[in-house]
């Protein structure tokens, strides 16, 4: 019984230690996880696979470093899948830090051993158009003219000098839109403007917090697919076969989550045991 009393007033540093261990250890483990593929990630993957080589994919990076653990692995997987299938990638961002995250993701993709048919070339196979302020209005402007919305790329080169951008006027020139979103502006706005108004085909990767808000769009077909949080990242990696950090991170996150649940359970257990004893004393 002493044990439970001690549990009641446990030093919070013990909890901290458990959380830390739960997060760190899985990163070093090579546990084979059974990752069940949910239908919305499957359809996202299928949408990429259906695109014929040479198709143009618009990738919108709408997140910043705090959300990177969840979204960066998905960005990397998405880019890798595009290059592997010879799809052309056009990157933009509605969040100021988005295009920088895109550059980091590109760096990761190129730094690892790849088996692409040919090394992707900037300006021909992919381009980063940078950030444009204005939230959803940017999407609306893109609907009438992309060159007017993004006159220059991330490096300051005029869009007219970029071979990949030749002939791109509005959403009808993109075969697919892939949005990585951590909040506003993000997938909700992309669906409302790019999909509903300009009939783009679109899939999305969202943080776990954000995902439930966009789930309804899958049912209606406004989104062709959705990958949510670490779990989505892990599934996406499993489907593409490029096992990256998403899978590892997801294990860490589940462990830490279970630790919290575990502590809540023993906290209540200890509470009921010690309370029962007190009642006996008084009664």
């Amino acid at each position, binding site marked *: 019984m002493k044990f439970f009393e001690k549990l009641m007033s446990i030093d919070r540093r013990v909890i901290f230690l458990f959380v830390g261990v739960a997060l760190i250890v899985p990163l070093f483990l090579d546990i084979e996880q059974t990752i069940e593929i949910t239908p919305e990630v499957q359809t996202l993957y299928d949408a990429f696979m259906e695109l014929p080589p040479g198709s143009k994919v618009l990738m919108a990076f709408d997140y910043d470093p705090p*959300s990177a653990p969840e979204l960066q692995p998905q960005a990397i997987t998405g880019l890798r899948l595009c290059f592997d299938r010879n799809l052309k990638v056009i990157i933009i961002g509605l969040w100021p830090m988005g295009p920088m995250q895109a550059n980091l993701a590109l760096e990761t993709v190129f730094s690892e051993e790849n088996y692409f048919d040919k090394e992707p070339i900037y300006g021909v196979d992919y381009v980063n158009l940078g950030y444009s302020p204005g939230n959803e209005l940017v999407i609306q402007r893109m609907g009438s003219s992309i060159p007017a919305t993004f006159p220059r790329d991330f490096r300051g080169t005029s869009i007219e000098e970029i071979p990949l951008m030749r002939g791109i006027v509005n959403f009808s020139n993109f075969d697919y839109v892939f949005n990585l979103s951590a909040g506003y502006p993000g997938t909700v706005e992309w669906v409302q403007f790019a999909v509903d108004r300009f009939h783009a085909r679109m899939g999305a990767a969202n*943080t776990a917090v954000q995902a439930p808000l966009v789930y309804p769009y899958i049912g209606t077909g406004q989104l062709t697919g959705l990958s949510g949080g670490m779990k989505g990242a892990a599934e996406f990696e499993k489907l593409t076969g490029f096992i990256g950090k998403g899978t590892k991170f997801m294990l860490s996150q589940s462990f830490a*989550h279970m630790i919290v649940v575990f502590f809540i359970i023993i906290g209540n257990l200890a509470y009921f045991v010690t309370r029962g004893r007190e009642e006996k004393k008084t009664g």
Partner: protein
Amino acid sequence: MDSVFSHTIAAILTIGIISFLYKDNPLYKFCESLFIGVSAGYWFVQQYYANLLPKLFDNLGITKLVGAENAPEGALQALFLEGRLDDNLLYLIAGVLGVMMLLRLSPKIGWIARWPLAFTVGSSAGLYFITYFQSNAMSQLEHTILPLNSFNNLVLIVGTVTGIIYFYFSKEHKGVFGGAAKVGIYFLMITFGASFGYTVMSRMSLLIGRIDFLFGTWLGLVK
């Protein structure tokens, strides 16, 4: 080499902040002080380049006046060179208000700092009055007007109405009214529990990012 050096700095700072969890210590104190100094400086520089320079100095033409290259023509040039009253001349008032704010440093006429303060407080009172009324009160209300033909709608309406009753100030929470307020508290508690539980997972991912930096980017142990 350079990236090893900068990663090492970042890693030490990361560890320093985490060490606070164990207890207060010199490394944390160092990190904390460095953070205060650097971030205060960061916003100091930001405020100058993001607000003072483009909004005040450029609009008025002071940047041009002091001989900066490629500076745009401002309201002062328009007034004195062309004899034209530019709309941007209104920014002069903002400049005066800004200076009044700084006069707070003077013990004699420090009271004048209340003027720009009154301006700020007045405009935020007006702005918030409108925006909260419009998007918090009205739109939430409209979305709660639903037919009582499903269990969910019933729960939603009962929860919202009893929740509002909980906040009612000028009537004692007794009897039926008190009972309704009690139900309101129950709804608030479910709300708090749910949004708490909802964020736990995303908070974990923040830490994963830092751990990945330490063991992956810095030490190269996690591939």
